[in-house]
């Protein structure tokens, strides 16, 4: 039987009238999809190599290129689509596990698009965010059970707080940059995140890659992660960050550990992660010293002792079926914050079948965790940070209303840096200079420009959140937190409404 060729995913159309054979596309494609033929003075495209990253289309000076889904069609089949055929063909060819990058792209319901916000009319007037103070400041950490005040007049003037407060992270906006390891992304990308977090007054997360020495100056805005591989974890690392996050799982691949293909492990990555150059960095599925909730408690307090109780220590878990009781256990184990990462969380490399089929949407997870913690009366013991596919400020404000203290953005941050979600991060050939260590490609991401774009994104979203809050008659994000009354569902079943804890649209108080 002859070899079965696999049809290309994309066709690149070139408008011959506009193409001036300037060869920018040839020079810029890391997959060598465009080739210049000197004899004919023409550029040809080998569509089979195109991954759909749109770098060439974006930079073509005459706009001569259009990247299209391969229009070649199979007979209509509701059960087997082209994607399924391609997967089977590839596995028949290689016998390997299919890898992919970024978050789940399958058409599971997106609950954000079924949740609607309120606005004030007549009885509770809206607030104008451009004319009146609006508070987005968010504190991540354990809050006291009860406030104890001392002294002061009847009206409370001059009273002092008697509680000794646990260490808090102060965010100027309820948005942080999600865990993306140095190794899966380039150092220039990490620098962009660090500079932007520092400038805006929020935090970014190191992910499992350790902390590169060039990033130590931004430690005050860094959350350092301790994952199952313990890559790059040493005393200086723990001291450098403002908080520590123990990663038990991530939304893109619940139940298994991180993947960094050897192609992306160069000198610098090797030194930062403390592993040999060129080896695959496969984190173990569990932490091999955490086999029960008591073990987790032990690790949390070991880290607290090591950093003298000066930094919040949190835990990141994937959103799975039993996320609510697991979260409760984590909070009772002493975590100062718990991060829940949903089905649509991104990744640099994960087995496709796991990314697409394991975990639950973050919308349901937030609601479940927030409700359970409140039921048990321990909601104030830890902050809840949600992650997994936030695309707009609308998604974020809904997440807070469902009960999150803050959200992590990963995919959105990379899109701000130029990512077009071609899902080929694991190859290390990212044309945008983000998910690569190839020096030819990493040059393309200028951290000054990257940081500028991320700060712009945070600013834009913060303003939008203020607008929406003002529209609801709220002037402090705290009033929105867990306020399910601000939300209504549309096109959802009774069970879904019940789990989300929201009323259907049309129903009043």
């Amino acid at each position, binding site marked *: 039987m002859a070899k079965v060729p696999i049809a290309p995913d994309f066709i690149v159309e070139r408008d011959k*009238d506009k193409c*001036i054979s300037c*060869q*920018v596309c040839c020079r*810029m494609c890391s997959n060598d999809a465009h080739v210049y033929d000197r004899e004919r003075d023409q550029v040809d495209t080998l569509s089979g190599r195109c991954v759909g990253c749109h770098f060439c289309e974006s930079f073509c*000076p*005459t706009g001569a290129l259009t990247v299209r889904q391969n229009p070649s069609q199979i007979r209509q089949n509701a059960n087997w689509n082209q994607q399924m055929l391609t997967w089977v063909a590839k596995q028949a060819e290689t016998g390997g596990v299919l890898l992919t990058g970024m978050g789940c792209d399958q058409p599971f319901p997106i609950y954000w698009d079924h949740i609607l916000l309120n606005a004030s009319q007549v009885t509770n007037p809206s607030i104008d965010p451009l004319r009146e103070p609006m508070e987005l400041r968010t504190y991540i950490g354990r809050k006291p059970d009860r406030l104890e005040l001392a002294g002061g007049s009847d009206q409370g003037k001059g009273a002092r707080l008697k509680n000794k407060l646990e260490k808090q992270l102060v965010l100027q906006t309820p948005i942080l940059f999600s865990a993306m390891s140095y190794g899966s992304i380039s150092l220039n990308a990490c620098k962009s995140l660090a500079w932007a977090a520092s400038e805006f007054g929020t935090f970014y997360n190191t992910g499992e890659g350790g902390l590169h020495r060039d990033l130590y100056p931004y430690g005050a805005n860094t959350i350092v992660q301790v994952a199952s591989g313990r890559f790059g974890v040493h005393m200086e690392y723990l001291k450098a960050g403002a908080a520590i996050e123990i990663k038990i799982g991530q939304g893109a691949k619940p139940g298994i550990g991180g993947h960094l293909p050897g192609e992306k492990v160069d000198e610098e990555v090797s030194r930062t992660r403390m592993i040999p150059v060129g080896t695959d960095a496969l984190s173990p599925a569990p932490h091999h010293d955490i086999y029960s909730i008591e073990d987790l408690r032990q690790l949390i307090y070991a880290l607290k002792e090591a950093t003298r109780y000066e930094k919040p220590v949190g835990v990141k878990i994937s959103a799975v079926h039993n996320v609510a009781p697991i979260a409760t256990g984590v909070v009772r184990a002493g975590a100062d914050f718990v991060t829940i990462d949903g089905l649509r969380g991104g990744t640099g490399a994960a087995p496709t079948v796991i990314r697409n089929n394991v975990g639950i949407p973050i919308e349901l997870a937030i609601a479940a965790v927030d409700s359970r913690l409140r039921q048990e009366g321990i909601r104030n013991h830890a902050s809840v940070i949600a992650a997994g596919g936030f695309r707009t400020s609308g998604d974020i404000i809904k997440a807070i209303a469902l009960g999150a203290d803050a959200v992590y953005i990963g995919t959105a941050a990379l899109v701000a840096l130029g990512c077009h979600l071609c899902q080929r991060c694991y190859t290390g050939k990212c044309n945008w200079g983000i998910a690569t260590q190839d020096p030819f490609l990493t*040059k393309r991401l200028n951290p000054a*420009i990257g940081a500028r774009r991320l700060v712009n994104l945070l600013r834009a979203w913060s303003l939008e959140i203020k607008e929406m809050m003002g529209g609801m008659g709220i002037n402090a994000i705290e009033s929105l937190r867990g306020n399910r009354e601000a939300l209504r569902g549309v096109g959802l079943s009774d069970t879904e409404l019940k789990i989300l804890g929201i009323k259907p649209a049309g129903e009043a108080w």
Partner: protein
Amino acid sequence: MKRIVIHEEYCMGCRLCEIHCLVQHSKSKQIIKAYKGEFPKPLSRVLVEEQGYLSFALQCRHCEDAPCLEACMTGSLHRDAETGAVICHEDKCVGCWMCIMVCPLGVIARRREGKKAASKCDLCAGEKIPVCVQHCPNEAITFEER
């Protein structure tokens, strides 16, 4: 004077600077016409040097002590009093290439089609910012007071 400053760590080697410089110095100033319809073919005055993954865009430095000004035998190379840039009057130039012989950076090109003349960066007289700087997608060249 305002000069073009090179940051070689961010140059991607895309050569969009060369393309836009060529268009700016063409007759039509339109990219498709400039590439497909003009004779003599316009020349880019910026040159991207590339070796391995190192690259940067190089153009005339408009040196304070410019050797090309001394070597020019027709007097067509002169300094613009306002911008401080070294400019070549291409009409007066006869293409003797003495300037090419002395420029230590090798940033002067030969126009060989049509009338022979030396071709070099003029800081885009008439534009607020040189077009190479305007169109660099990664800010690898900037226009600063130095």
